[in-house]
């Protein structure tokens, strides 16, 4: 057991999979010699050499397209998109090509690709380097999407993503890179499509994702002081979605609150709210409440960004509204 930062967990995750499988290759901007702009990939070039750890030009379409072509011809590529905002630059490759190739060819093309990316706000980068875009990917049939919120999940979910035969996007909340967590020694492999109950309560179900998980836990702690016991579910995997874990919790609590860093419209919480309203309507004892960033681009100034992203206070308020 060792304490690792999330940042260190990224390098360990990539290293674990490259060590295990010689067909795993890694490419991206500044990932090799520079060790990544967030220092998440330090040491990989030295360990695996320049053939398997490749610096690319600033060519997001070529990075993702090359990953697709390589996956069609026997590699298991890991591609880094430095900021998740850059998905907008190569969306054709992601949404039209990678996501659809298997279906359009009736299963002839298999694409074991991982795209990993630094996502979300909280670091004052402004509107074009701070977006939470996980719901963009969730909306495209053919993409799997996971969002690890701890160092150990970063390794386990990443390993599951690399070993999965389908394209998986691993969304890393960049505000968590400096966060720390206990990580067991040896190989760590998790499963896609499994949420985790990170706090047991029974009065209300709080579903959170990525950087919102620690905030939801803090809110749950504060609510406990007032006698409200919250289930906190780290959703972890948007596709596949662990509906059962969420529905089972709502069955017991009768109350659902989602905590989403994405802008309001069409966030992942809306899909969960819709499913729960459809399938667990008679278990509900109050309104489903979504706590989200307002439907805005993220501003840069500390005060404005903090006002935009869900805070512990807003989560507590959301829970109270659900409880009535």
């Amino acid at each position, binding site marked *: 057991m060792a304490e690792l930062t999330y940042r260190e967990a990224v390098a360990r995750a990539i290293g674990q999979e490259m060590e295990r499988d010689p067909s795993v290759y890694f490419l991206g901007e500044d990932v090799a010699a520079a060790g990544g702009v967030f220092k998440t990939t330090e040491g990989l070039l030295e360990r695996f050499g320049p053939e398997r750890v490749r610096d690319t030009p600033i060519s997001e*379409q*070529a990075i993702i*397209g*090359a990953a*697709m*072509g390589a996956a*069609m011809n026997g590699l298991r590529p890991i591609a880094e998109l430095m900021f998740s905002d850059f998905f907008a630059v190569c969306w054709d490759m992601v949404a039209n090509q990678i996501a659809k190739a298997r279906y*359009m060819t009736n299963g002839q093309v298999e694409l074991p690709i991982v795209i990993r990316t630094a996502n979300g706000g909280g670091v004052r980068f402004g509107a074009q380097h701070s977006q939470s875009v996980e719901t963009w990917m969730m909306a495209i049939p053919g993409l799997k999407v996971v969002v690890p919120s701890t160092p150990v999940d970063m390794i386990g979910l990443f390993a599951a993503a690399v070993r999965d035969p389908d394209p998986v996007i691993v969304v890393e909340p960049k505000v968590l890179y400096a966060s720390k967590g206990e990580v067991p020694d040896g190989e760590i492999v998790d499963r896609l499509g499994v949420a985790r109950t990170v706090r047991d309560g029974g009065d209300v179900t709080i579903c959170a994702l990525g950087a919102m998980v620690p905030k939801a836990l803090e809110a749950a702690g504060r609510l406990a002081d007032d006698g409200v016991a919250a289930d906190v579910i780290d959703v972890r995997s948007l596709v596949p979605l662990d509906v059962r874990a969420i529905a089972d919790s709502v069955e017991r609590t009768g109350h659902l609150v989602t905590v989403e860093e994405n802008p309001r419209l069409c966030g992942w919480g809306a899909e969960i709210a819709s499913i729960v309203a459809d399938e667990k309507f008679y278990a509900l004892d109050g309104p489903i409440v979504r706590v989200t960033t307002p439907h805005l681009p993220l501003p840069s100034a500390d005060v404005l960004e903090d006002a935009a992203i869900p805070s512990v206070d807003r989560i507590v308020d959301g829970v109270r509204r659900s409880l009535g």
Partner: protein
Amino acid sequence: MVDTIQDADLDTRLSIYRMMQEGRLFEKRAQDLFLEGLVKGTSHLGIGQEAVAAGFAAALEPDDLVFCTYRGHVHTLLRGAPMGALMAELLGRANGICGGKGGSMHLTDVSHGAMGSYAIVGAHMPIAAGAAWAAKARGTRQVAVCFFGDGTTNIGTFHEALNMAAVWELPVVFVCENNLYMEYTAIRDVTAVEHPAADRASAYGLESILIDGNDADAVHAVAVRTVGRARAGEGPSLVEAVTYRHGGHSRADPGKYRPTEEVEEWLRRDPIPLYRERLLAAGADEATLQGIERDVRDAVDRATEEAREGPFPDPGTLETQLWADGGAAWRN
């Protein structure tokens, strides 16, 4: 223009002739089936451009990888994809090469190295580079060949892929089929250089290669040279083959924006009758050529029957093959 000399033996040239006939007659039949209402959606025919596909096809090994565009019926067919399954895909039948999920713009036969017809202009340029990267990394000696239109030279992926392929010295040949029109607009009206691909080769440290794309021998010669160079580890090439589509951009386009004299001039330069004459002059006998033509007509007839008689897809296949487990589930 360079590479106008031919260096192939007569058997190879007869096989190129057969392939051009296969492409031509397959697409003519596809056109007939459209008019009959049996093919839905749209189609983009390459009638008139067959020499490019055939010249390259004759230069490839079985495990080489071809990437083409929505104007990709002929390239896919000439990799060896079964003609009946291709025709059935156009008709939306269960025995189609993609089970009816792909259609005219997405013909793919991975088992024959036909790695897809890409319907977003330029998308397959970096994908082909990536396949070549894997070939190099794995030491397979495969070559990737990427066919694209003149319009592609003005989209970003063209430049990103060429740069990456050059920097990484990848075994890939990019083949621009310059048919003078990007959709409905003359390429010269929207492009800063005269030769949209060849004039840009130097930007990526590549040789400028411009050939007559209606001369199957010239295409084959340049294919042998560039594919051979890629296979020998000498990096990528960019070829511009000037050709002409006899029809419009797609089913919806009668191509009226083209001057009549221009169309007539290019019809006189139809690659198939030109090649036929050249083969006769080179010693092929008339009976052999007629035999090839008869075989191809029969093959197209059989493929058409196979397609017409194919069942429609079972609606139960709708939610299949999204994921590698064969299904389409997104939740538990």
